[in-house]
């Protein structure tokens, strides 16, 4: 009742219209903030719960629901940093993620340039074929990869996982870079050719700095999709190159539920991603437009 009143009152010509308007305006201005705030809260609460658990003892986790640790402990983290089978997992993961990012960019850069600058025999088919690999479920590749990398002797090395992840990262990198490169006017290429630049010199010293943003975005996406993938990484490794994500699943199922340790390991896998985001935070919006909007 009382909420409906101001509107009817403001409709009467005797009262100043500005009286009702700021109220509606203030509410309208606050509503998006409220929705956004609630949504961000929804994103953060599950992560908070994991962080919260990682600082608890297993006794406290299983005995009571507490919103923050009563007896904060670093024991879970200490175990991870002192046990080679745990911290080795992080190093293995970082190895193949970095390898994959480097390989993906190295092959995708010239290809993206070709797609953005020239027409050639079968170019459209090739582009769609590349993208179609992004659409193949990793589950489809798990078994043949297992045999392929076993046959060529790369099984259980970071190379196997890095190459396997190229199946979905290379097409994505080509796609992103092609978008950014198409935004650079072709006159630059022509002028450089007239000025006597050789192609490699032009490409590395003149062209790459112009699409540096795109390279950063492509690297971000390669890092992201390689870092988060589990199925192929787990299938292609056993002992020496075992990534942290696989360590987590195996240890948990074998040794019963050590929730505190699991939570701490999980928190540590979030950190590299958070660091990367922090560095690219000012470019995220543009990057997600994939350079083409």
């Amino acid at each position, binding site marked *: 009742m009382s909420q409906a009143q101001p509107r009817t009152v403001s409709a009467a010509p005797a009262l100043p219209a500005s009286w009702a308007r700021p109220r509606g305006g203030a509410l309208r201005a606050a509503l998006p903030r409220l929705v956004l705030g609630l949504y961000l809260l929804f994103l953060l609460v599950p992560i908070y719960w994991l962080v919260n658990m990682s600082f608890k003892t297993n006794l406290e986790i299983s005995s009571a629901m507490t919103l923050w640790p009563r007896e904060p402990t670093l024991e879970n983290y200490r175990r991870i940093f002192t046990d080679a089978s745990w911290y080795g997992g992080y190093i293995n993961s970082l190895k193949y993620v970095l390898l994959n990012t480097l390989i993906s960019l190295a092959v995708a850069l010239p290809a993206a340039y070709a797609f953005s600058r020239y*027409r050639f025999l079968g170019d459209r088919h090739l582009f769609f074929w590349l993208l179609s690999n992004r659409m193949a479920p990793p589950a489809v590749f798990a078994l043949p990869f297992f045999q392929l990398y076993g046959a060529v002797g790369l099984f259980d090395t970071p190379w196997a996982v890095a190459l396997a992840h190229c199946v979905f990262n290379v097409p994505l990198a080509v796609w992103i870079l092609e978008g950014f490169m198409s935004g650079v006017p072709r006159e630059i290429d022509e002028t450089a050719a007239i000025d006597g630049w050789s192609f490699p010199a032009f490409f590395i010293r003149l062209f790459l700095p112009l699409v540096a943003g795109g390279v950063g975005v492509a690297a971000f996406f390669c890092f992201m999709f390689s870092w988060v993938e589990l199925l192929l990484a787990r299938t292609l490794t056993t002992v020496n190159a075992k990534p942290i994500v696989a360590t987590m699943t195996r240890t948990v199922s074998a040794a019963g539920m050590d929730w505190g340790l699991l939570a701490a390991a999980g928190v540590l896998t979030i950190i590299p991603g958070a660091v990367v985001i922090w560095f690219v935070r000012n470019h995220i919006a543009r990057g997600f437009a994939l350079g083409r909007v």
Partner: protein
Amino acid sequence: MSKPRNERAWLLVLPVVVLVAFSALIPVMTVVNYSLQDTFGNNEFFWNGVGWFRELLDPSTDLGGRFLDALWRTLLFSALCLLIEIPLGIGVALTLPRRGWGVAASLVVLALPLLIPWNVVGTIWQVFGRRDIGLLGAALNGMGLSYNYAQNPLDAWFTVVLMDVWHWTSLVVLLCYAGLRAIPDAYYQAARVDGANGWAVFRAIQLPKLQRVLTIAILLRFMDSFMIYTEPFVVTGGGPGNATTFLSIDLVKIALGQFDLGKAAAMSIVYNLIILTVCWVFFATTTRDQNDAVTDAGGKGP
């Protein structure tokens, strides 16, 4: 528009072709090869022709029934994810401020779920939903709802879909936000002069300008939700019963669990073809509309 024709460009594409051929073409050929054969172990193979495919697409057989059940579950899951995530993503993107200190902070929080390894996402929700040690499970049960994702199929679905919304809506938000930022201020000024309200601005300006990013968002979300494996596997393990056994989970079970190579390979091919077909049809129809729009605009021009 008119790119010069130059066949030497193939030299630049060659590394990609070699790499992807090695890591995609060889496995695909292996899969095709297996799909036509049967094995009783010991690396002995027998020609089976299209037998596996016939069995797979016939709902009355054991394999066919299992495949179709998993297919419907996966389609339902993808549909639910798209129906929730796309509108929610657009909505949240519209609430993001255009400038100010809040933008960077919001974007960082939004991007956070995207960079968490998928099995950790599963772990987070596995813990979060448990009634004994998880906040969500305890809160729901505290409100008098009996919620147990490990035993009740409906609760399992609720958890898995909520997890996917949590995990991936941010991608839609970031894509849409990038699209919204690309709209020149002049459009909004024109709308203000015309006295358009918020809804009219959304329908006439924002939504049409978002078409391209939304195409990308829908494609990516369809593909990835249709291929989902790790997250539901960690949370529910495909259960209770087979309630959340999606295609990928079933496929891995057959391929790496039972080592039924022929069946798994045939299933892989049909599975992959479904994704390719859906994406191609969707892509072809949306880009044709966009091309038509461009041609129309060109016709009306000078």
